[in-house]
């Protein structure tokens, strides 16, 4: 993937989006790949995609790095942080200096956690749907170089792609169906965490490695990660079939 040119990478993302609009695709896997693409295309260190639940709290649905430490960084924005601000007002925020108290005073816990994880700069782009937002895409950088205007445009386009993928079945254009789809994405995310725990315990490993094995098995067998996770949680799949990490 690193050998690919930037243009090739952008093309690949768009090809994947086109596929997603036609096929019965794996949403969580798609969003994770999109996050990984963002890291390379925008030269940042970590990317997370957060989605609002019906009570306006933000939940992580995908991240470029599935380690629990990075996931927790997004989790903390459940009730504070620039993602929540961006979700509420629908505006992007770029070049947030995590070491500048005049910037971070509104969400000190988030800023501290981000600094502890080694990040210095953050950017947030809303997942826009008509005149509101349904979530946010959060970028982190360990350095402090600013995001250029063209990069910011690309980042917003990638965030919009996430929204399109999330709401791909908009055939009826109904709010109830959109909400059900967003809800299902959140449910899938929880199911995956539950399945990680089940596999980690069976294999005496940690959830991060369990996820890698889960994802590899889903890819090999062309299954959706969320479907596979659900079968593991409701015990309709014998986990002995999944190769241990």
């Amino acid at each position, binding site marked *: 993937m690193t050998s690919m040119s930037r243009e090739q990478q952008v093309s690949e993302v768009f090809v994947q989006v086109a596929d997603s609009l036609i096929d019965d695709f794996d949403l969580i896997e798609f969003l994770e790949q999109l996050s990984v693409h963002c890291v390379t295309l925008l030269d940042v260190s970590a990317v997370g995609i957060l989605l609002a639940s019906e009570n306006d709290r933000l939940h992580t649905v995908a991240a470029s790095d599935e380690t629990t430490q990075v*996931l*927790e960084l997004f989790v903390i924005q459940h009730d504070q942080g620039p993602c929540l601000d961006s979700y509420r007002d629908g505006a992007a925020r770029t070049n947030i200096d995590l070491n500048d108290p005049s910037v971070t005073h509104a969400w000190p816990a988030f800023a501290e956690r981000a600094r502890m994880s080694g990040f210095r700069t953050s950017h947030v782009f809303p997942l826009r749907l008509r005149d509101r937002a349904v979530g946010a895409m959060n970028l982190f950088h360990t350095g402090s170089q600013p995001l250029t205007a063209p990069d910011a445009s690309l980042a917003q386009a990638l965030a919009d792609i996430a929204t399109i993928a999330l709401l791909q079945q908009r055939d009826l254009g109904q*709010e*109830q169906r959109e909400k059900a789809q967003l809800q299902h994405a959140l*449910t899938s995310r929880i199911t995956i965490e539950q*399945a990680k725990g089940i596999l980690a315990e069976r294999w005496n490993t940690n*959830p991060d490695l369990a996820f890698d094995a889960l994802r590899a098995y889903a890819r090999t067998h062309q299954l959706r990660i969320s479907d596979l996770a659900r079968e593991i949680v409701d015990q309709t799949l014998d986990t002995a079939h999944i190769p241990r990490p």
Partner: protein
Amino acid sequence: MSEILRAFHAERGSRLSDGCASTLGMDQLSVSLALEGPTTETLWTTGETSTSFEDLQFTLGEGPGLDALRTGRAVLEHDVSAVAAGRWPVLLPALAGLPIQAVFCLPLALGGITVGVLTALRSIPGPMTGQQMNDAMALAAALALRYLGGDGEQFDTRAGGRLDGELHHAVVHQATGMLSVQLGLPPGKALLRLRAHAYGHDRPILDVAEDVVARRLRLNRDSPDEPNASEETRG
């Protein structure tokens, strides 16, 4: 949303009032719980139509409620007359005599744990508004927590409310999965054990979950901090 949750939490019994149905813009509501295997049991209904609807699904073994239970996804049919005949070939003709033109079935689920279905019926076709859908999802989430242990067992929803605040942490769900294997329990019951242990030791669930995932803590199969025992001591 706050209105429907207040109504829900005010009810200490297992029923919801007709007020909930009208808040959601519906004629009738029902709740069915998953039992062992593919069977369900109707917990309550707000009237004859929803009772008949649940009975038909149960008898015929097909319908939107069973689909929602099996897939963990909402089934929203806001115009029953437009549903393809092959979708529920036996149920659809049987519905002809009932005043049902819109059916909404929301799973009572927490991730991969599906404990039942909330069904909302209306005699007039048409989608739910965004607000009604939010209310219905909030009600389904509250019901899912109340019946998380499965088998129709009901747990303290005030404590469930506390639990709700912890559920956005990945580590809580990972710990649930790990405990379900350690304890040989369904994941819903494993989460209740996690919660009971946290309350029993007066610790945040998040901390206990982190200990479980880091393998600093194992729970025993026969531990004194059973959910019921813990709740009894807490009155």
